[in-house]
Protein backbone atom coordinates (compact mmCIF):
# COMPACT_ATOMS: atom_id res chain seq x y z
CA UNK A 1 0.00 0.00 0.00
CA UNK A 2 2.72 2.41 -1.06
CA UNK A 3 0.26 5.15 -1.83
CA UNK A 4 -0.97 5.62 1.70
CA UNK A 5 2.54 5.81 3.10
CA UNK A 6 3.52 9.08 4.64
CA UNK A 7 6.51 10.96 3.34
CA UNK A 8 9.60 10.27 5.33
CA UNK A 9 10.40 13.68 6.61
CA UNK A 10 9.62 15.90 9.53
CA UNK A 11 5.98 16.89 9.23
CA UNK A 12 6.49 20.10 11.18
CA UNK A 13 5.32 22.32 8.37
CA UNK A 14 2.31 20.09 7.87
CA UNK A 15 1.25 20.39 11.47
CA UNK A 16 1.72 24.15 11.49
CA UNK A 17 -0.16 24.65 8.25
CA UNK A 18 -3.05 22.49 9.35
CA UNK A 19 -3.22 24.14 12.76
CA UNK A 20 -3.23 27.64 11.34
CA UNK A 21 -5.84 26.70 8.77
CA UNK A 22 -8.15 25.15 11.30
CA UNK A 23 -7.73 28.15 13.57
CA UNK A 24 -8.72 30.48 10.74
CA UNK A 25 -11.59 28.19 9.81
CA UNK A 26 -13.09 27.73 13.24
CA UNK A 27 -12.23 30.95 15.03
CA UNK A 28 -15.13 32.99 13.66
CA UNK A 29 -17.53 30.14 14.31
CA UNK A 30 -16.32 29.69 17.86
CA UNK A 31 -16.52 33.43 18.43
CA UNK A 32 -20.12 33.43 17.31
CA UNK A 33 -20.91 30.58 19.64
CA UNK A 34 -19.04 32.12 22.53
CA UNK A 35 -20.68 35.50 22.37
CA UNK A 36 -24.10 33.97 22.01
CA UNK A 37 -23.64 33.04 25.64
CA UNK A 38 -22.57 36.50 26.71
CA UNK A 39 -24.70 38.16 29.35
CA UNK A 40 -24.16 41.60 27.89
CA UNK A 41 -24.77 42.91 24.43
CA UNK A 42 -21.11 43.30 23.57
CA UNK A 43 -19.45 41.19 20.92
CA UNK A 44 -15.95 42.01 22.02
CA UNK A 45 -15.87 41.62 25.77
CA UNK A 46 -17.14 38.51 27.40
CA UNK A 47 -18.57 39.35 30.80
CA UNK A 48 -20.38 36.26 31.91
CA UNK A 49 -22.46 33.27 30.92
CA UNK A 50 -26.07 33.69 30.15
CA UNK A 51 -28.70 31.98 28.10
CA UNK A 52 -30.80 35.11 27.78
CA UNK A 53 -30.38 35.40 24.05
CA UNK A 54 -31.55 31.85 23.54
CA UNK A 55 -34.45 32.56 25.83
CA UNK A 56 -35.37 35.51 23.67
CA UNK A 57 -35.30 33.29 20.62
CA UNK A 58 -37.83 30.91 22.07
CA UNK A 59 -40.20 33.79 22.63
CA UNK A 60 -39.69 35.30 19.24
CA UNK A 61 -42.76 34.12 17.38
CA UNK A 62 -41.68 35.37 14.01
CA UNK A 63 -38.40 33.51 14.31
CA UNK A 64 -40.09 30.31 15.40
CA UNK A 65 -42.42 30.59 12.41
CA UNK A 66 -39.43 30.95 10.15
CA UNK A 67 -37.72 27.98 11.75
CA UNK A 68 -40.74 25.78 11.23
CA UNK A 69 -41.11 27.04 7.68
CA UNK A 70 -37.49 26.20 6.92
CA UNK A 71 -37.90 22.73 8.40
CA UNK A 72 -40.97 22.13 6.30
CA UNK A 73 -39.29 23.41 3.16
CA UNK A 74 -36.21 21.31 3.76
CA UNK A 75 -38.25 18.17 4.37
CA UNK A 76 -40.39 18.44 1.27
CA UNK A 77 -37.46 19.52 -0.88
CA UNK A 78 -35.39 16.59 0.36
CA UNK A 79 -38.09 14.05 -0.45
CA UNK A 80 -38.73 15.62 -3.85
CA UNK A 81 -35.11 15.81 -4.88
CA UNK A 82 -34.41 12.28 -3.62
CA UNK A 83 -37.19 10.88 -5.76
CA UNK A 84 -36.37 12.88 -8.86
CA UNK A 85 -32.62 12.61 -8.41
CA UNK A 86 -32.74 8.85 -8.00
CA UNK A 87 -34.95 8.43 -11.05
CA UNK A 88 -32.51 10.55 -12.96
CA UNK A 89 -29.47 8.63 -11.72
CA UNK A 90 -31.03 5.27 -12.63
CA UNK A 91 -32.09 6.47 -16.06
CA UNK A 92 -28.72 8.05 -16.83
CA UNK A 93 -26.76 4.97 -15.81
CA UNK A 94 -28.67 2.72 -18.16
CA UNK A 95 -29.52 4.95 -21.09
CA UNK A 96 -26.23 5.35 -22.88
CA UNK A 97 -27.47 7.26 -25.91
CA UNK A 98 -26.45 10.71 -26.98
CA UNK A 99 -29.72 12.04 -25.62
CA UNK A 100 -28.87 10.53 -22.25
CA UNK A 101 -25.54 12.32 -22.13
CA UNK A 102 -27.14 15.64 -22.98
CA UNK A 103 -29.68 15.23 -20.23
CA UNK A 104 -26.90 14.31 -17.84
CA UNK A 105 -25.04 17.50 -18.66
CA UNK A 106 -28.13 19.67 -18.29
CA UNK A 107 -28.88 18.28 -14.86
CA UNK A 108 -25.42 19.26 -13.68
CA UNK A 109 -25.83 22.85 -14.83
CA UNK A 110 -27.38 24.07 -11.55
CA UNK A 111 -24.18 23.06 -9.81
CA UNK A 112 -22.02 25.37 -11.88
CA UNK A 113 -24.49 28.23 -12.17
CA UNK A 114 -24.13 31.00 -9.61
CA UNK A 115 -27.06 30.82 -7.26
CA UNK A 116 -28.10 34.35 -8.04
CA UNK A 117 -28.76 33.38 -11.64
CA UNK A 118 -30.93 30.42 -10.69
CA UNK A 119 -32.65 32.61 -8.12
CA UNK A 120 -33.50 35.31 -10.63
CA UNK A 121 -34.58 32.73 -13.18
CA UNK A 122 -36.86 31.03 -10.69
CA UNK A 123 -38.37 34.36 -9.65
CA UNK A 124 -39.13 35.30 -13.22
CA UNK A 125 -40.58 31.90 -13.96
CA UNK A 126 -42.98 32.00 -11.06
CA UNK A 127 -44.13 35.56 -11.62
CA UNK A 128 -44.33 34.99 -15.33
CA UNK A 129 -46.64 32.02 -14.82
CA UNK A 130 -48.67 33.95 -12.31
CA UNK A 131 -47.67 31.88 -9.31
CA UNK A 132 -47.65 33.86 -6.09
CA UNK A 133 -44.42 33.66 -4.16
CA UNK A 134 -44.75 31.47 -1.09
CA UNK A 135 -43.24 28.44 0.61
CA UNK A 136 -44.29 26.42 -2.39
CA UNK A 137 -42.21 28.45 -4.77
CA UNK A 138 -39.22 28.15 -2.47
CA UNK A 139 -39.69 24.40 -2.37
CA UNK A 140 -39.93 24.14 -6.14
CA UNK A 141 -36.76 26.16 -6.62
CA UNK A 142 -34.85 24.21 -3.97
CA UNK A 143 -35.83 20.87 -5.47
CA UNK A 144 -34.56 22.00 -8.87
CA UNK A 145 -31.27 22.98 -7.36
CA UNK A 146 -30.82 19.89 -5.19
CA UNK A 147 -31.58 17.23 -7.80
CA UNK A 148 -28.02 17.53 -9.07
CA UNK A 149 -26.51 16.65 -5.69
CA UNK A 150 -28.67 13.56 -5.33
CA UNK A 151 -27.95 12.45 -8.89
CA UNK A 152 -24.20 12.73 -8.44
CA UNK A 153 -24.17 10.82 -5.15
CA UNK A 154 -26.55 8.10 -6.29
CA UNK A 155 -24.74 7.63 -9.59
CA UNK A 156 -21.53 7.25 -7.68
CA UNK A 157 -23.03 4.41 -5.68
CA UNK A 158 -24.81 2.93 -8.69
CA UNK A 159 -21.58 2.68 -10.63
CA UNK A 160 -20.36 0.25 -8.00
CA UNK A 161 -23.40 -1.97 -8.42
CA UNK A 162 -22.55 -3.81 -11.55
CA UNK A 163 -24.97 -4.37 -14.37
CA UNK A 164 -24.61 -8.07 -13.71
CA UNK A 165 -26.43 -7.77 -10.37
CA UNK A 166 -29.46 -6.43 -12.14
CA UNK A 167 -29.17 -9.14 -14.78
CA UNK A 168 -28.89 -11.76 -12.05
CA UNK A 169 -32.16 -10.54 -10.59
CA UNK A 170 -33.85 -10.82 -13.96
CA UNK A 171 -32.24 -14.18 -14.56
CA UNK A 172 -33.83 -15.40 -11.33
CA UNK A 173 -37.32 -14.36 -12.29
CA UNK A 174 -37.67 -10.61 -11.76
CA UNK A 175 -39.28 -8.32 -14.26
CA UNK A 176 -37.16 -5.20 -14.81
CA UNK A 177 -39.37 -3.31 -12.39
CA UNK A 178 -39.07 -5.97 -9.72
CA UNK A 179 -35.31 -6.01 -10.19
CA UNK A 180 -35.30 -2.30 -9.52
CA UNK A 181 -37.50 -2.55 -6.47
CA UNK A 182 -36.07 -5.67 -4.85
CA UNK A 183 -32.39 -5.50 -5.67
CA UNK A 184 -31.19 -2.12 -6.90
CA UNK A 185 -33.04 0.22 -4.57
CA UNK A 186 -32.08 -1.68 -1.41
CA UNK A 187 -28.44 -1.42 -2.45
CA UNK A 188 -28.89 2.31 -2.89
CA UNK A 189 -30.25 2.94 0.59
CA UNK A 190 -26.92 4.09 2.08
CA UNK A 191 -26.40 6.56 -0.72
CA UNK A 192 -29.96 7.82 -0.36
CA UNK A 193 -29.51 8.34 3.36
CA UNK A 194 -26.30 10.30 2.81
CA UNK A 195 -27.72 12.36 -0.02
CA UNK A 196 -30.91 13.06 1.89
CA UNK A 197 -29.12 14.38 4.95
CA UNK A 198 -26.80 16.50 2.83
CA UNK A 199 -29.65 18.01 0.83
CA UNK A 200 -31.63 18.72 3.98
CA UNK A 201 -28.77 20.69 5.47
CA UNK A 202 -28.09 22.56 2.24
CA UNK A 203 -31.72 23.52 1.70
CA UNK A 204 -32.25 24.50 5.31
CA UNK A 205 -29.27 26.85 5.19
CA UNK A 206 -29.79 28.12 1.69
CA UNK A 207 -30.13 31.86 1.45
CA UNK A 208 -29.86 33.14 -2.11
CA UNK A 209 -32.52 30.97 -3.73
CA UNK A 210 -34.86 31.42 -0.80
CA UNK A 211 -34.35 35.19 -0.93
CA UNK A 212 -35.60 35.43 -4.49
CA UNK A 213 -38.44 32.97 -4.29
CA UNK A 214 -39.95 33.51 -0.88
CA UNK A 215 -43.29 35.03 -0.13
CA UNK A 216 -43.81 37.67 2.52
CA UNK A 217 -44.75 35.40 5.37
CA UNK A 218 -43.44 33.10 6.67
CA UNK A 219 -39.93 33.69 5.47
CA UNK A 220 -37.39 30.92 5.58
CA UNK A 221 -35.02 31.25 8.47
CA UNK A 222 -31.90 32.35 6.54
CA UNK A 223 -33.86 35.16 4.87
CA UNK A 224 -35.13 36.44 8.18
CA UNK A 225 -31.67 36.26 9.71
CA UNK A 226 -30.34 38.18 6.74
CA UNK A 227 -32.82 40.98 7.34
CA UNK A 228 -31.64 41.20 10.93
CA UNK A 229 -28.00 41.29 9.87
CA UNK A 230 -28.72 44.24 7.59
CA UNK A 231 -29.50 46.21 10.75
CA UNK A 232 -26.26 45.25 12.39
CA UNK A 233 -24.64 42.63 14.50
CA UNK A 234 -26.18 41.52 17.77
CA UNK A 235 -25.97 38.59 20.17
CA UNK A 236 -29.46 37.55 19.19
CA UNK A 237 -28.13 36.75 15.74
CA UNK A 238 -25.24 34.96 17.36
CA UNK A 239 -27.69 32.75 19.17
CA UNK A 240 -29.74 31.75 16.16
CA UNK A 241 -26.58 31.49 14.11
CA UNK A 242 -25.01 29.12 16.59
CA UNK A 243 -28.07 26.92 16.54
CA UNK A 244 -28.10 26.85 12.76
CA UNK A 245 -24.45 25.96 12.63
CA UNK A 246 -24.79 23.19 15.18
CA UNK A 247 -27.84 21.76 13.46
CA UNK A 248 -26.21 21.77 10.05
CA UNK A 249 -22.98 20.35 11.42
CA UNK A 250 -24.81 17.42 12.98
CA UNK A 251 -26.64 16.73 9.74
CA UNK A 252 -23.48 16.87 7.64
CA UNK A 253 -21.55 14.65 10.01
CA UNK A 254 -24.41 12.17 9.93
CA UNK A 255 -24.49 12.37 6.13
CA UNK A 256 -20.80 11.55 5.98
CA UNK A 257 -20.74 8.88 8.65
CA UNK A 258 -24.06 7.01 8.56
CA UNK A 259 -23.75 5.43 5.11
CA UNK A 260 -20.39 4.02 6.16
CA UNK A 261 -22.16 1.84 8.67
CA UNK A 262 -23.60 0.06 5.66
CA UNK A 263 -20.18 -0.79 4.35
CA UNK A 264 -17.11 0.61 2.63
CA UNK A 265 -17.30 2.86 -0.32
CA UNK A 266 -20.85 3.91 0.15
CA UNK A 267 -20.54 7.26 1.87
CA UNK A 268 -20.27 10.70 0.39
CA UNK A 269 -16.97 11.09 2.17
CA UNK A 270 -15.56 8.32 0.07
CA UNK A 271 -16.96 9.91 -3.03
CA UNK A 272 -15.38 13.21 -2.14
CA UNK A 273 -12.03 11.87 -1.15
CA UNK A 274 -11.81 9.45 -4.04
CA UNK A 275 -12.41 6.39 -1.94
CA UNK A 276 -10.06 4.16 0.00
CA UNK A 277 -7.72 2.12 -2.18
Amino acid at each position, binding site marked *: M*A*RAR*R*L*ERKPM*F*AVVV*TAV*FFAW*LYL*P*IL*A*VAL*FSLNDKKS*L*STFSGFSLRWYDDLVHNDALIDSLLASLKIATVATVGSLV*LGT*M*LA*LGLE*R*VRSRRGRV*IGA*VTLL*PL*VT*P*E*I*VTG*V*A*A*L*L*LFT*GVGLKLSMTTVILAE*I*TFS*IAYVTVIVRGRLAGVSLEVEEAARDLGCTP*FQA*LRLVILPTLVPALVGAGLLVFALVFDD*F*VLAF*FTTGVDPQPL*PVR*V*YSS*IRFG*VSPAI*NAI*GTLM*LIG*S*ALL*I*VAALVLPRLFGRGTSS*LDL*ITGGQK
Partner: protein
Amino acid sequence: MAVLDRRGAKPAPRSAQRTWLWGALLALPTAWMVAFFVFSMAIVVLLSFGRTTNDGFPAFATSTANYRALWNDVYLELFWRSLLYALATVAISVLIAYPVAYAVALHGGRYKNALIAAIVVPFFASYLIRMYAWKALLSDDGLVNSGLRGSGLSDGVTFLNTPWAVIGGLVYGFVVFMILPIYASLERLDVSLIEAGKDLYHGPVRTFFSVTLPATRAGLYGGVLLVFLPALGDFVSAQLLGGASTFMMGNLVQQQFTEGQNWPLGSALTVAMMAALTVLMVAYLRATSTQAQEP
Protein backbone atom coordinates in the same frame (compact mmCIF):
# COMPACT_ATOMS: atom_id res chain seq x y z
CA MET B 1 -26.33 -32.83 -37.05
CA ALA B 2 -29.10 -30.54 -38.15
CA VAL B 3 -28.74 -29.19 -41.63
CA LEU B 4 -27.62 -25.64 -42.00
CA ASP B 5 -30.57 -23.82 -43.38
CA ARG B 6 -29.71 -20.15 -43.64
CA ARG B 7 -32.61 -19.45 -45.89
CA GLY B 8 -34.97 -20.17 -43.04
CA ALA B 9 -33.29 -17.96 -40.47
CA LYS B 10 -35.79 -15.34 -39.43
CA PRO B 11 -34.75 -11.95 -38.03
CA ALA B 12 -35.20 -12.10 -34.27
CA PRO B 13 -37.83 -9.83 -32.71
CA ARG B 14 -36.65 -7.04 -30.44
CA SER B 15 -37.36 -7.87 -26.84
CA ALA B 16 -39.18 -4.70 -26.09
CA GLN B 17 -39.17 -4.88 -22.33
CA ARG B 18 -35.58 -3.94 -21.83
CA THR B 19 -35.15 -0.20 -22.05
CA TRP B 20 -38.63 1.19 -21.63
CA LEU B 21 -38.32 1.27 -17.88
CA TRP B 22 -35.14 3.30 -17.81
CA GLY B 23 -36.32 5.71 -20.44
CA ALA B 24 -39.53 6.20 -18.50
CA LEU B 25 -37.54 6.92 -15.34
CA LEU B 26 -35.73 9.68 -17.15
CA ALA B 27 -38.88 11.32 -18.38
CA LEU B 28 -40.21 12.91 -15.21
CA PRO B 29 -36.99 14.46 -13.87
CA THR B 30 -36.06 15.66 -17.32
CA ALA B 31 -39.44 17.32 -17.70
CA TRP B 32 -38.95 18.95 -14.32
CA MET B 33 -35.50 20.25 -15.19
CA VAL B 34 -36.69 21.57 -18.52
CA ALA B 35 -39.64 23.30 -16.95
CA PHE B 36 -37.97 24.76 -13.91
CA PHE B 37 -34.47 25.33 -15.09
CA VAL B 38 -34.17 25.56 -18.84
CA PHE B 39 -37.47 27.33 -19.29
CA SER B 40 -36.76 29.77 -16.48
CA MET B 41 -33.43 30.68 -18.05
CA ALA B 42 -35.22 31.31 -21.30
CA ILE B 43 -37.56 33.75 -19.57
CA VAL B 44 -34.62 35.65 -18.17
CA VAL B 45 -33.24 36.06 -21.65
CA LEU B 46 -36.63 37.11 -22.96
CA LEU B 47 -37.19 39.70 -20.26
CA SER B 48 -33.76 41.17 -20.84
CA PHE B 49 -35.23 42.58 -24.00
CA GLY B 50 -38.21 43.92 -22.08
CA ARG B 51 -39.18 47.23 -20.55
CA THR B 52 -40.89 48.59 -17.50
CA THR B 53 -44.46 49.82 -17.85
CA ASN B 54 -45.63 53.13 -16.50
CA ASP B 55 -47.06 51.38 -13.44
CA GLY B 56 -43.64 49.99 -12.73
CA PHE B 57 -44.33 46.44 -13.84
CA PRO B 58 -41.96 44.47 -16.01
CA ALA B 59 -43.22 43.60 -19.46
CA PHE B 60 -41.90 41.68 -22.42
CA ALA B 61 -40.80 43.69 -25.41
CA THR B 62 -38.16 43.70 -28.09
CA SER B 63 -35.81 46.41 -27.02
CA THR B 64 -32.10 46.35 -26.63
CA ALA B 65 -32.22 49.37 -24.37
CA ASN B 66 -31.14 47.38 -21.35
CA TYR B 67 -28.07 46.03 -23.04
CA ARG B 68 -27.13 49.44 -24.32
CA ALA B 69 -27.53 50.79 -20.82
CA LEU B 70 -25.02 48.23 -19.61
CA TRP B 71 -22.34 49.58 -21.83
CA ASN B 72 -21.27 52.45 -19.66
CA ASP B 73 -18.40 53.14 -17.35
CA VAL B 74 -20.20 52.43 -14.11
CA TYR B 75 -21.31 48.98 -15.08
CA LEU B 76 -18.10 48.08 -16.82
CA GLU B 77 -16.13 49.08 -13.77
CA LEU B 78 -18.37 46.85 -11.72
CA PHE B 79 -17.74 43.99 -14.08
CA TRP B 80 -13.99 44.36 -13.91
CA ARG B 81 -14.12 44.62 -10.17
CA SER B 82 -16.10 41.41 -9.90
CA LEU B 83 -13.66 39.70 -12.22
CA LEU B 84 -10.74 40.96 -10.20
CA TYR B 85 -12.23 39.87 -6.89
CA ALA B 86 -13.04 36.43 -8.27
CA LEU B 87 -9.53 35.99 -9.64
CA ALA B 88 -8.04 37.14 -6.37
CA THR B 89 -10.26 34.66 -4.58
CA VAL B 90 -9.03 31.88 -6.81
CA ALA B 91 -5.39 32.83 -6.38
CA ILE B 92 -5.59 33.03 -2.61
CA SER B 93 -7.58 29.80 -2.51
CA VAL B 94 -4.86 28.01 -4.40
CA LEU B 95 -2.22 29.34 -2.03
CA ILE B 96 -4.20 28.06 0.92
CA ALA B 97 -5.54 24.84 -0.58
CA TYR B 98 -2.31 23.30 -1.75
CA PRO B 99 -0.46 23.35 1.57
CA VAL B 100 -3.52 22.18 3.48
CA ALA B 101 -4.44 19.43 1.04
CA TYR B 102 -0.81 18.38 0.87
CA ALA B 103 -0.48 18.28 4.65
CA VAL B 104 -3.60 16.20 5.13
CA ALA B 105 -3.12 13.88 2.18
CA LEU B 106 0.51 13.06 2.68
CA HIS B 107 0.96 13.55 6.42
CA GLY B 108 -2.51 12.91 7.72
CA GLY B 109 -2.13 9.21 8.26
CA ARG B 110 -4.92 7.75 10.31
CA TYR B 111 -6.55 11.10 10.85
CA LYS B 112 -6.96 11.88 7.19
CA ASN B 113 -10.67 11.22 6.97
CA ALA B 114 -11.42 12.96 10.24
CA LEU B 115 -9.46 16.01 9.10
CA ILE B 116 -11.22 16.17 5.79
CA ALA B 117 -14.56 15.81 7.49
CA ALA B 118 -13.59 18.59 9.90
CA ILE B 119 -12.82 20.80 6.91
CA VAL B 120 -15.92 19.91 4.93
CA VAL B 121 -18.51 20.19 7.68
CA PRO B 122 -18.29 23.97 8.28
CA PHE B 123 -18.40 24.68 4.57
CA PHE B 124 -21.71 22.99 4.08
CA ALA B 125 -23.18 24.64 7.14
CA SER B 126 -24.75 28.00 6.47
CA TYR B 127 -22.72 30.27 4.27
CA LEU B 128 -24.75 33.21 5.55
CA ILE B 129 -23.89 32.71 9.19
CA ARG B 130 -20.22 32.26 8.42
CA MET B 131 -20.13 35.59 6.57
CA TYR B 132 -21.92 37.08 9.54
CA ALA B 133 -19.26 35.61 11.81
CA TRP B 134 -16.57 37.58 10.02
CA LYS B 135 -18.71 40.68 10.04
CA ALA B 136 -19.01 40.36 13.77
CA LEU B 137 -15.30 39.71 14.22
CA LEU B 138 -14.08 42.50 12.00
CA SER B 139 -16.52 45.23 12.87
CA ASP B 140 -15.29 48.31 14.72
CA ASP B 141 -16.56 46.97 18.04
CA GLY B 142 -15.68 43.45 17.15
CA LEU B 143 -13.26 41.07 18.77
CA VAL B 144 -10.30 41.82 16.52
CA ASN B 145 -10.45 45.55 16.93
CA SER B 146 -10.97 45.39 20.67
CA GLY B 147 -7.99 43.08 20.86
CA LEU B 148 -5.89 45.52 18.90
CA ARG B 149 -6.99 48.41 21.06
CA GLY B 150 -6.54 46.46 24.24
CA SER B 151 -3.00 45.44 23.41
CA GLY B 152 -2.19 48.96 22.39
CA LEU B 153 -1.20 47.93 18.89
CA SER B 154 -3.52 50.34 17.20
CA ASP B 155 -6.49 52.59 17.65
CA GLY B 156 -8.71 50.42 15.57
CA VAL B 157 -8.51 49.44 11.97
CA THR B 158 -11.43 49.53 9.60
CA PHE B 159 -11.54 46.06 8.20
CA LEU B 160 -15.01 46.09 6.86
CA ASN B 161 -16.03 47.95 3.77
CA THR B 162 -12.78 47.18 2.04
CA PRO B 163 -11.99 45.00 -0.94
CA TRP B 164 -9.88 42.73 1.24
CA ALA B 165 -12.78 42.04 3.55
CA VAL B 166 -14.94 41.03 0.62
CA ILE B 167 -12.24 38.89 -0.94
CA GLY B 168 -11.49 37.39 2.43
CA GLY B 169 -15.15 36.51 2.79
CA LEU B 170 -15.22 34.94 -0.65
CA VAL B 171 -12.17 32.87 0.13
CA TYR B 172 -13.64 31.78 3.45
CA GLY B 173 -16.79 30.80 1.67
CA PHE B 174 -15.37 28.85 -1.24
CA VAL B 175 -11.85 27.62 -0.51
CA VAL B 176 -13.17 24.13 0.28
CA PHE B 177 -14.04 23.71 -3.39
CA MET B 178 -10.37 24.11 -4.12
CA ILE B 179 -9.17 21.91 -1.29
CA LEU B 180 -11.29 18.88 -2.16
CA PRO B 181 -10.29 18.38 -5.80
CA ILE B 182 -6.63 18.98 -5.02
CA TYR B 183 -6.86 16.60 -2.10
CA ALA B 184 -8.45 13.95 -4.30
CA SER B 185 -5.67 14.41 -6.85
CA LEU B 186 -2.99 14.14 -4.22
CA GLU B 187 -4.61 11.01 -2.81
CA ARG B 188 -4.29 9.33 -6.17
CA LEU B 189 -0.72 10.41 -6.53
CA ASP B 190 2.00 7.85 -6.12
CA VAL B 191 4.18 9.02 -3.25
CA SER B 192 7.25 7.47 -4.81
CA LEU B 193 6.94 10.04 -7.59
CA ILE B 194 7.57 12.80 -5.09
CA GLU B 195 10.44 10.96 -3.49
CA ALA B 196 12.00 10.38 -6.88
CA GLY B 197 11.53 14.05 -7.59
CA LYS B 198 13.31 15.01 -4.43
CA ASP B 199 16.27 12.94 -5.50
CA LEU B 200 16.28 14.62 -8.86
CA TYR B 201 15.56 18.17 -7.92
CA HIS B 202 17.26 18.48 -4.55
CA GLY B 203 14.74 20.80 -3.05
CA PRO B 204 11.14 20.79 -1.87
CA VAL B 205 10.14 23.86 -3.82
CA ARG B 206 11.51 22.68 -7.13
CA THR B 207 10.08 19.22 -6.51
CA PHE B 208 6.73 20.77 -5.96
CA PHE B 209 6.73 22.75 -9.17
CA SER B 210 8.24 20.02 -11.29
CA VAL B 211 6.53 16.95 -9.94
CA THR B 212 3.59 17.59 -7.62
CA LEU B 213 1.97 20.45 -9.45
CA PRO B 214 1.85 18.86 -12.90
CA ALA B 215 0.62 15.57 -11.47
CA THR B 216 -2.27 17.22 -9.64
CA ARG B 217 -3.16 19.49 -12.51
CA ALA B 218 -6.59 17.96 -12.95
CA GLY B 219 -7.57 18.72 -9.37
CA LEU B 220 -6.25 22.25 -9.67
CA TYR B 221 -8.21 22.98 -12.84
CA GLY B 222 -11.37 21.61 -11.31
CA GLY B 223 -10.89 23.63 -8.18
CA VAL B 224 -10.28 26.85 -10.08
CA LEU B 225 -13.55 26.44 -11.90
CA LEU B 226 -15.50 25.51 -8.79
CA VAL B 227 -14.25 28.58 -6.92
CA PHE B 228 -14.32 31.14 -9.71
CA LEU B 229 -17.90 30.58 -10.79
CA PRO B 230 -19.70 31.13 -7.50
CA ALA B 231 -17.29 33.87 -6.48
CA LEU B 232 -18.02 35.90 -9.57
CA GLY B 233 -21.74 35.87 -8.98
CA ASP B 234 -21.69 36.28 -5.24
CA PHE B 235 -23.36 39.20 -3.51
CA VAL B 236 -23.63 38.15 0.12
CA SER B 237 -20.00 38.70 0.94
CA ALA B 238 -19.94 42.13 -0.68
CA GLN B 239 -23.17 43.06 1.01
CA LEU B 240 -22.25 42.03 4.53
CA LEU B 241 -18.56 42.73 4.55
CA GLY B 242 -18.29 45.52 2.03
CA GLY B 243 -20.02 48.69 1.00
CA ALA B 244 -20.87 50.82 -1.99
CA SER B 245 -17.27 50.95 -3.14
CA THR B 246 -16.98 47.16 -3.28
CA PHE B 247 -20.17 46.44 -5.14
CA MET B 248 -20.06 43.35 -7.32
CA MET B 249 -22.21 42.30 -10.24
CA GLY B 250 -24.28 40.17 -7.95
CA ASN B 251 -25.16 43.16 -5.77
CA LEU B 252 -26.29 45.12 -8.76
CA VAL B 253 -28.50 42.32 -9.95
CA GLN B 254 -29.99 41.92 -6.53
CA GLN B 255 -30.67 45.63 -6.40
CA GLN B 256 -32.67 45.58 -9.62
CA PHE B 257 -34.99 42.99 -8.23
CA THR B 258 -35.48 44.58 -4.85
CA GLU B 259 -35.13 48.35 -4.34
CA GLY B 260 -34.39 49.25 -7.92
CA GLN B 261 -37.44 47.46 -9.27
CA ASN B 262 -36.07 47.27 -12.76
CA TRP B 263 -36.52 43.65 -13.65
CA PRO B 264 -35.68 43.95 -17.34
CA LEU B 265 -32.40 45.62 -16.53
CA GLY B 266 -31.73 43.01 -13.89
CA SER B 267 -32.41 40.31 -16.45
CA ALA B 268 -30.05 41.90 -18.90
CA LEU B 269 -27.39 42.07 -16.20
CA THR B 270 -27.93 38.42 -15.39
CA VAL B 271 -27.67 37.43 -19.02
CA ALA B 272 -24.51 39.50 -19.41
CA MET B 273 -23.03 37.83 -16.35
CA MET B 274 -23.91 34.36 -17.63
CA ALA B 275 -22.53 35.18 -21.04
CA ALA B 276 -19.28 36.39 -19.55
CA LEU B 277 -19.08 33.28 -17.37
CA THR B 278 -19.73 30.96 -20.29
CA VAL B 279 -17.12 32.63 -22.46
CA LEU B 280 -14.55 32.47 -19.69
CA MET B 281 -15.39 28.86 -18.88
CA VAL B 282 -15.21 27.69 -22.48
CA ALA B 283 -11.89 29.46 -23.00
CA TYR B 284 -10.63 27.98 -19.76
CA LEU B 285 -11.71 24.45 -20.63
CA ARG B 286 -10.14 24.76 -24.05
CA ALA B 287 -6.87 25.96 -22.58
CA THR B 288 -6.69 23.30 -19.91
CA SER B 289 -7.69 20.41 -22.11
CA THR B 290 -5.09 21.15 -24.76
CA GLN B 291 -2.55 21.23 -22.00
CA ALA B 292 -3.70 17.85 -20.83
CA GLN B 293 -2.91 16.43 -24.24
CA GLU B 294 0.73 17.30 -23.89
CA PRO B 295 2.84 14.27 -23.01
